[in-house]
């Protein structure tokens, strides 16, 4: 015998005949039929991807604004912090712990360069105006660049419907030309591939394209229209009328209630990290339930088991213990 007893006390009482293999086969048949029927009746969702091309054509003003914020450094991706860009003091915190900052910048992205300047420089036949604009941008220092792009962003905000064509005159340097050329490139469809391309021949990484698209409102507006937004319990939902990931109900729930839903509060500003921590903690509780006094006694206090085993309890009065 080994030192630690591995005695498993098996049931010695009454048994019934049981065909485990048949049970499995029947279960497989039932599930197969259900799945095939559901698939034939309802199919599955497949909303086509958005592209930089569709973005530029459907929402050109939003595209131009996003491009300007890349140059300005104020876009969501440029001001994100780790893992994309090192920004001191950035990163969400739970109390004093800032795991986002601790993980560091492991997927470095230079938004202005990757999304705007490099694609423009890659153009095979740039117009003389564009060539001049690129030269002007390159020759300016960061203060000048910032002044130009920030002014242009403010002007876009003031223009009717944010339309670049209706922007008031001002000192914007080469920014309007850069963003407009980028728009033309985007509308033609040639920007998608250029932004996606990395240094390698084969690419499976869409970090650049998705970060760039996320810097405008186009992607988010399409999602909100389908009730997929963060404050619409979007995590649980699916495009169209299909059932979504209902099992994420508790994860998305926190985002819907204060203080998590209020970005003005400390918890709200760090909602992602705080909610993650809560969910990890709750998962741990679920995992360790057999060892948690009180919680593990709930099934005794609320005796649903008496319904499950009612036949057994009727036929077998409880032995005295």
């Amino acid at each position: 015998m080994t030192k630690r007893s591995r005695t498993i006390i098996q049931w010695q009482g009454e048994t019934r005949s049981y065909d485990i293999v048949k049970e499995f086969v029947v279960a497989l048949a039932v599930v197969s039929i259900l799945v095939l029927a559901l698939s034939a009746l309802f199919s599955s969702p497949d909303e086509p991807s958005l592209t930089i091309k569709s973005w530029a054509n459907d929402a050109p003003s939003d595209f131009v604004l996003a491009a300007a914020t890349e140059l300005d450094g104020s876009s969501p991706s440029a001001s994100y912090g780790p893992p994309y860009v090192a920004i001191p003091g950035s990163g969400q915190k739970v109390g004093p712990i800032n795991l986002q900052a601790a993980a560091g910048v492991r997927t470095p992205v230079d938004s202005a360069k990757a999304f705007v300047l490099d694609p423009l420089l890659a153009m095979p036949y740039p117009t003389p105006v564009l060539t001049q604009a690129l030269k002007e941008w390159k020759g300016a220092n960061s203060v000048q660049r910032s002044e130009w792009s920030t002014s242009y962003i403010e002007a876009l905000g003031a223009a009717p419907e944010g339309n670049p064509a209706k922007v008031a005159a001002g000192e914007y340097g080469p920014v309007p030309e850069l963003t407009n050329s980028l728009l033309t490139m985007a509308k033609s469809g040639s920007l998608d591939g250029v932004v996606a391309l990395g240094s390698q021949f084969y690419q499976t990484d869409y970090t650049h394209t998705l970060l760039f698209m996320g810097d405008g409102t186009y992607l988010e507006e399409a999602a909100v229209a389908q009730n997929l937004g963060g404050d619409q319990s979007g995590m649980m939902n699916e495009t169209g009328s299909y059932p979504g990931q209902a099992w994420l109900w508790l994860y998305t729930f926190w985002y819907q209630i204060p203080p998590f839903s209020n970005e003005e509060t400390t918890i709200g500003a760090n909602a992602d990290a705080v909610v993650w921590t809560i969910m990890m903690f709750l998962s741990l509780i679920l995992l360790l339930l057999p060892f948690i006094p009180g919680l593990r006694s709930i099934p005794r206090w609320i005796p649903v088991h008496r319904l499950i085993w009612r036949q057994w309890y009727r036929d077998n009065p409880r032995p005295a213990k």
Partner: protein
Amino acid sequence: MNALMILASDLTGPGTYIKIPLTPIQISVGNLIVIVTMLVTFVLAILIPFPGRKETN
């Protein structure tokens, strides 16, 4: 077949969302059907008698 045709519906159209009163919860009809079906199935699984009287070993 007609019953199937009635049952089959195009789920690609915009979803219907229901707001649960007095809560911040908004839920899609698709998810609501799944969750309600789960609860009903759970209750039925416990309440519906299991066939076969006990057979002694």
